């Protein structure tokens, strides 16, 4: 279908690494690119990637983005993930303005993006779901919770990404959990409606990447395992899932494709499932967008999902992906965040003084940072995604160790050492983890440094072979040289003394 491509201009209504990733494919396809930038984000990497850049008041500002699209002659908009990527109002606005959207229709998004309707549709399509209830802010949580049963999970009815999620084990914990979950939901999405759902013990998070042509034909691009999460934020994702019974895998694919066909899904999407210890699975929700962890599926299938999205949008009547591609090899992604896992995952903002990414076979880096850039706290703290691909899973893990060893990010703290420790965990190596495993079985790890390395660093400091900082690393407008400069490495909490 590539020959039918019309010239187009793609605007990415997003920032940082995902905007760069979409721009890469656009550039490869010879499409012009438009970036937007919100106040406070002027140093972000995506700005230099596009052919033109426009200032907008914020990444959630629909009228401004539509206006920029009109002004610039944009023909297609990619929403990335987060921000407006799952807002039907945004897609409706684009449909009215006759601007193409790289995703599903507003109608499908409304249906599948709503956790509740999505569950009802899943039930219609014969896909099992967990008991659930929806309660408006200030509503009767007690009755709803009793119906759902304990333990249960509270989450924001709008949005995703782990915002506003709380586990509740007993009725007496319900009120305070609902209060703080609603506050977080309002802060993140402007809607305090909460969703209650029964919680499985030790479930795995398995999701199926799908792609539809909008007319009822759909394919799956195999599954991803995303069980390594903390506070429901994924940190390590794989394709395909290790130790997954063939029957479960087949069931997941069939269920996913039933749903895709049922709603005549268009473009890329993901169906999230929980899989219990017996291999039984339950539909959680559908993400009607490209996901953070899409690279692992791209690596094992050889499909460029963004290219497929663009080709589908440019050829709306065609079926871009005709068959479900078989997976080959194994891919793993880790998310490098500016946070300190050893101190309650406190943000560790600062100026990026040095970046060295790994090179070599089977390594992909989707980076959102540049040397010299200041990473603040106004935007997501993900610095980059490190993705490896190898023929076998154990080789992929070994490759991830190598890739992390070669990665150098100086000037601010990150979870890099913690991710490296994950690569050595027997449970991770054997693929025996579940969604709460990171929080309950791994968090107690402490940073380590061998006697030999300690010795070496003392000597290196004395010998003057340690690089010195630029002196411009202040954040929050602090004047260089100010003695009150807060170190990003000193954190509160968890017994900082001794």
């Amino acid at each position, binding site marked *: 279908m590539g020959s039918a491509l019309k010239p187009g201009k793609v605007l990415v209504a997003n920032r940082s690494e995902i905007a760069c990733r979409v721009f890469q494919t656009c550039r490869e396809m010879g499409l012009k690119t438009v970036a937007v930038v919100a106040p406070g984000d002027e140093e972000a990497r995506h700005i230099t990637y596009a052919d033109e850049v426009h200032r907008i008041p914020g990444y959630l500002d629909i009228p401004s983005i539509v206006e920029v699209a009109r002004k610039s002659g944009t023909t297609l908009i990619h929403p990335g993930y987060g921000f407006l990527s799952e807002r039907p109002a945004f897609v409706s606005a684009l449909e009215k303005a006759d601007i193409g959207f790289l995703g599903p229709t507003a109608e499908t998004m409304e249906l599948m993006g709503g956790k509740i309707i999505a569950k009802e549709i899943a039930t219609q399509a014969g896909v099992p779901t967990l008991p659930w209830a929806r309660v408006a802010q200030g509503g009767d949580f007690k009755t709803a919770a009793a119906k759902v049963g304990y333990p249960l999970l509270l989450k924001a009815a709008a949005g995703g990404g782990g915002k506003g999620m709380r586990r509740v084990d007993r009725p007496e914990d319900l009120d305070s959990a609902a209060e703080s979950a609603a506050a977080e939901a309002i802060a993140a999405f402007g809607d305090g409606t909460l969703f209650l759902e029964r919680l499985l013990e030790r479930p795995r998070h398995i999701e199926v990447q799908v792609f539809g042509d909008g007319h009822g034909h759909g394919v799956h691009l195999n599954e991803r395992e995303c069980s390594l999460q903390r506070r429901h934020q994924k940190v390590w994702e794989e394709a395909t899932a290790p130790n997954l019974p063939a029957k479960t895998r087949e069931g997941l694919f069939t269920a996913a494709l039933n749903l895709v066909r049922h709603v005549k899904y268009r473009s890329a999407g993901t169906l999230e499932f929980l899989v219990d210890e017996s291999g039984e699975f339950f539909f959680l929700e559908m993400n009607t967008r490209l996901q953070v962890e899409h690279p692992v599926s791209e690596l094992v299938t050889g499909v460029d999902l963004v290219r497929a999205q663009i080709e589908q949008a440019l050829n709306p009547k065609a079926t871009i992906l005709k068959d479900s591609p078989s997976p080959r090899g194994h891919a793993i992604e880790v998310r490098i965040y500016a946070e300190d896992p050893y101190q309650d995952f406190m943000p560790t903002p600062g100026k990026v003084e040095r970046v060295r990414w790994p090179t070599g076979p089977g390594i992909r880096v989707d980076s959102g940072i540049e040397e010299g850039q200041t990473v603040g706290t106004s935007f*997501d703290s993900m610095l980059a995604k490190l993705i490896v691909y190898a023929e076998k899973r154990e080789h992929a893990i070994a490759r991830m*160790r190598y890739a992390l060893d070669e990665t150098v990010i*100086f000037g601010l703290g990150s979870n890099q050492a913690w991710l490296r420790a994950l690569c050595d965990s027997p449970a991770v190596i054997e693929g025996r983890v579940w969604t709460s495993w990171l929080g309950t079985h791994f968090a107690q790890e402490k940073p380590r440094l*061998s006697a030999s390395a300690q010795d070496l660093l003392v000597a290196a*400091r004395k010998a003057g072979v340690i690089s010195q900082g630029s002196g411009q690393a202040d954040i929050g407008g602090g004047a260089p040289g100010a003695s009150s400069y807060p*170190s990003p490495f000193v954190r509160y*909490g968890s017994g900082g003394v001794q």
Partner: protein
Amino acid sequence: MSAKPDSKKVAFSWKVSGTRFAMQEVESAWRFEKRPGGWVIAERTLADGGVERHRFQAWEFRTRFQAAIEGRNLAGEVLLKTRAGAAAGSGDSDLTAQFPGKVRKILVSEGERVAEGTPLMLLEAMKMEFSIKAPFEGVVKKLCVAEAQQLSPGQQLIELDPVPAKGGSSE
């Protein structure tokens, strides 16, 4: 905690994520070679005649010291005053806002005695909630912020008086 006698001299103390490494003075003969790209090669000859070799990167700015070595990227703070034992000194920085945010909830009141690890307040930043825990056992001397208050980096959150240990000295 009892102050250990200084059997070996501590060159500097390196606090990484709440873990303090006492970096001891050494006599060993490391040979260093600075390489392009920021890499440093370190070698030393061992007693058995073998050579120990490391490849690493390290960076230092003001009190911040960071090293990528042995597959670990460790970001920490150099504490130049290597006073043995006592909690004093680092306590304050643990109770200071390190990033812009908002006070969501204060969980203790002035005069209250708290054990190490007790949650003192909840902060909100990047649409997430974080708890500030007592870095040591103490008495809440003063709450320096109010609920819903916006925080700027470096702002003191709370003053905590350490509970004097038996015969403890406060400095």
